[in-house]
């Protein structure tokens, strides 16, 4: 299967040299998968795909005409393998990072010392779309703001891991990690067992533990619920999957009522007081009394209960300011400022359009850069310089000039590639990695995470909403 594989000069996850043997940690994968005939392998793939479809492992792509389409999440059968020593660096780096981000949130919603000391300009913080003045002075339970974080990592042409962005609001994708693992165990049971891959199946129980740790009532079993925007949301599959796996109720806004500073869930046997809400709804929509008045998804009065300390929201309100793409550029400074340590994982170099000098550089080099909107996620509102048309670049230039605070740009990092089944053969495709960090009493990172792969040839965009697929990630 791998005879004709070409690395094309990119850093390849599996093969250090074109035509040479695989990295030692990939040897068994090379042996087993390389031993398949093409027909047999495609047959295996067809089986896996039909299993996904039957189980409804799907997501929704939002089109321009607002008609959502449900699709199965494309899955690649060649696993990504990460050796233990590499994983340890990722774990240490992400632990350091989430601690710094939490200290940052704590700081800016209290004394804002990092601003007073001139490390981060006040403008950056206070003008961030997700800065929440309601949170000023509020002491969040256990001092934790970002309970669940999904940071996207990429590898450059030397194989060095870099942080591309932090998703500190409602990162999605964890359910695919679990489903992918099930699929791989069925497809390659022997290979999986013989490698000693670290399991991920305990993610739901760790997540539940993380949530229960926050409960304001420490007697009995805390009542935790998952609050979803509903069945039309692109990640609804994940919401129902996680709720079921954790053994907690999945609710929509209309299933909850806030009264006298407490939140209750309507059940067939009356109202039940809720302690912790794992909410998969953005801040803006969570409470029409406090935020967007037109929101039908939220629960009126829920913020009041939250600020009185009677119910906990995970993640906290206002965490979006820490995963803002401008704030991102300052994370290495935060680590230095709060922890007096050097970042273990580095950032991708980032230009900030609101800085005069950076803006000139961005506007002059649009063709070489990736431009991102500061507060968007999921690959929306993005310009890929090298593949963009002149018209797109002109549009973006105008947007940047009109609203410099909202844009950042990064050089195109030639993401590492991984052998991927494409059409009839195996070709290199660009990948990233989203590990999931849980911040409860312990900081837990499930070994692996979602390896996303850009299935279109040459594409660097791995988002599921933009034609990306995924792989199982095996940490040894």
């Amino acid at each position, binding site marked *: 299967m791998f005879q004709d594989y070409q690395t094309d000069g990119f850093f390849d996850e599996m093969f250090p040299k074109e035509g040479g043997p695989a990295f030692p940690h990939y040897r068994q994968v090379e042996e087993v998968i390389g031993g398949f005939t093409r027909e047999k392998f495609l047959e295996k793939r067809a089986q896996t795909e039909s299993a996904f479809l039957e189980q409804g492992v799907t997501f929704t792509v939002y089109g321009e005409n607002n008609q959502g389409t449900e699709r199965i999440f494309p899955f690649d059968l060649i696993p990504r393998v990460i050796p233990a020593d590499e994983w*340890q660096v990722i774990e*240490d780096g992400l*632990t*350091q990072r989430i*601690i710094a981000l939490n*200290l940052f949130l*704590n*700081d800016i919603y*209290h*004394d804002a*010392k*990092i601003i007073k000391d001139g490390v981060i300009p006040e403008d950056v913080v206070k003008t961030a779309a997700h800065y929440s003045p309601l949170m000023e002075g509020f002491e969040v339970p256990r*001092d934790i703001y970002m309970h669940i974080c999904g940071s996207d990592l990429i590898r450059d042409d030397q194989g060095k891991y870099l942080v591309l962005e932090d998703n500190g609001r409602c990162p999605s994708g964890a359910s695919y990690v679990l489903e992918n693992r099930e699929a791989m165990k069925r497809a390659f049971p022997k290979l999986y*067992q013989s490698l*000693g*891959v*670290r*399991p991920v*199946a*305990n993610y739901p129980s760790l997540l539940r533990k993380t949530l229960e740790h926050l409960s304001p009532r420490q007697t009995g079993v805390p009542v935790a619920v998952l609050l979803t925007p509903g069945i039309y949301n692109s990640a609804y599959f994940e919401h129902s999957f996680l709720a079921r796996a954790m053994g907690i109720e999945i609710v929509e806004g209309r299933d909850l009522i806030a009264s006298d500073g407490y939140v209750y869930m309507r059940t067939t046997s009356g109202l039940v007081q809720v302690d912790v809400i794992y909410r998969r709804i953005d801040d803006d929509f969570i409470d029409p009394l406090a935020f967007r008045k037109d929101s039908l998804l939220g629960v009126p009065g829920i913020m009041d209960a939250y600020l009185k300390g009677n119910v906990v929201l995970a993640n906290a309100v206002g965490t979006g300011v820490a995963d803002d793409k401008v704030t991102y550029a300052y994370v290495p400074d935060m680590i230095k*400022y*709060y*922890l*007096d*340590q050097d970042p273990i994982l580095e950032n991708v170099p980032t230009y900030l359009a609101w800085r005069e000098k950076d803006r000139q550089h961005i506007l002059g080099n649009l063709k070489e850069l990736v431009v991102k909107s500061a507060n968007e996620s999921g690959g929306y509102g993005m310009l890929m310089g090298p593949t963009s048309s002149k018209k797109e670049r002109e549009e973006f230039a105008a947007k940047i000039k009109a609203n410099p605070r909202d844009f950042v740009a990064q050089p195109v990092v030639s993401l590492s590639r991984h052998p991927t089944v494409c059409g009839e053969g195996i070709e290199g495709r660009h990948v990233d990695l989203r590990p999931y960090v849980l911040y409860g*009493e*312990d*900081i837990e990172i499930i070994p692996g995470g979602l390896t996303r792969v850009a299935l279109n040839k040459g594409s660097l965009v791995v988002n599921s909403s933009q034609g990306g697929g995924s792989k199982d990630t095996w940490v040894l």
Partner: protein
Amino acid sequence: MELKVYHRTEYRYSAPAKDSVNEVKLTPRDSKSQKCSSSIVSVIPAARPKPYLDLYGNRSHHIELPESHDRFVVEARIRIHTAPGLRVEDYPYGVEMSGLKVLSGREDCHPFLQSSPYIDVNPGIWREAVDMMSESSDVFQTCYAIMEHIFKEYDYKPGATAVTTHANEVIKRKVGVCQDFAHAMVALCRSLNIPARYVSGYFFDSTRDHRLRGSEATHAWVEVFVEGYGWIGLDPTNNKVVDDTYIVLAVGRDYTDVSPVSGSYFGGGTSTLIVHVAVRRVDVPLAVL
């Protein structure tokens, strides 16, 4: 063994405190028995912990909070590898008590032979120690006998003593917690000219019924110096020679030198202290699910 520690110390003040200056010792030292792979100390309200090494080589941080605040939280997260403990046949027996005299001239032993704030080296304690060692003339055997004596004869009773209880009182009343037992043992060893130091750290209770003491908070034990071997840890609270379930945070003459968080501030009214420690093993191979 690979272990993870989460240690949170929180002070809440009834009135605003300010000009707070603190010293924390929450970063394990590296030695032949342990290697720390990552360690993070963080503070709320925001303050940068500045690292330095103290007199005894402990990795310490200096933290200042000049502005007014009503709470102060220090958190430490540690990940560490510990080496397997000594096998019984490798215990450093065979060093004669008669050879101890020369040690007081050594710079690394001298401070651990003297009296210190919580420890008095006096004839009364010496008499107690001599009774415990019975006929032994072997350094390690003597230390082991003292540890065993404390474990068997002293009452482990939380609340019976305070953080400021002196070793003299512990030896007289034969009651206390790990800090007191360690102070008593250090005093008894020193009175016999055996260099002994006080150790603070964590302890992972690997027994199935969690019958050992001290794993729910910071623990304290003793290290004695045995010529030719070096410092060896003995835990009088659990009657154990220190093994890979122990993590050394800091060593010193007594509690004064190693207290995990210490400092001073102005104002504050009355303060409430909440401490939480969790030690977890991370390298247990999980069953493949």
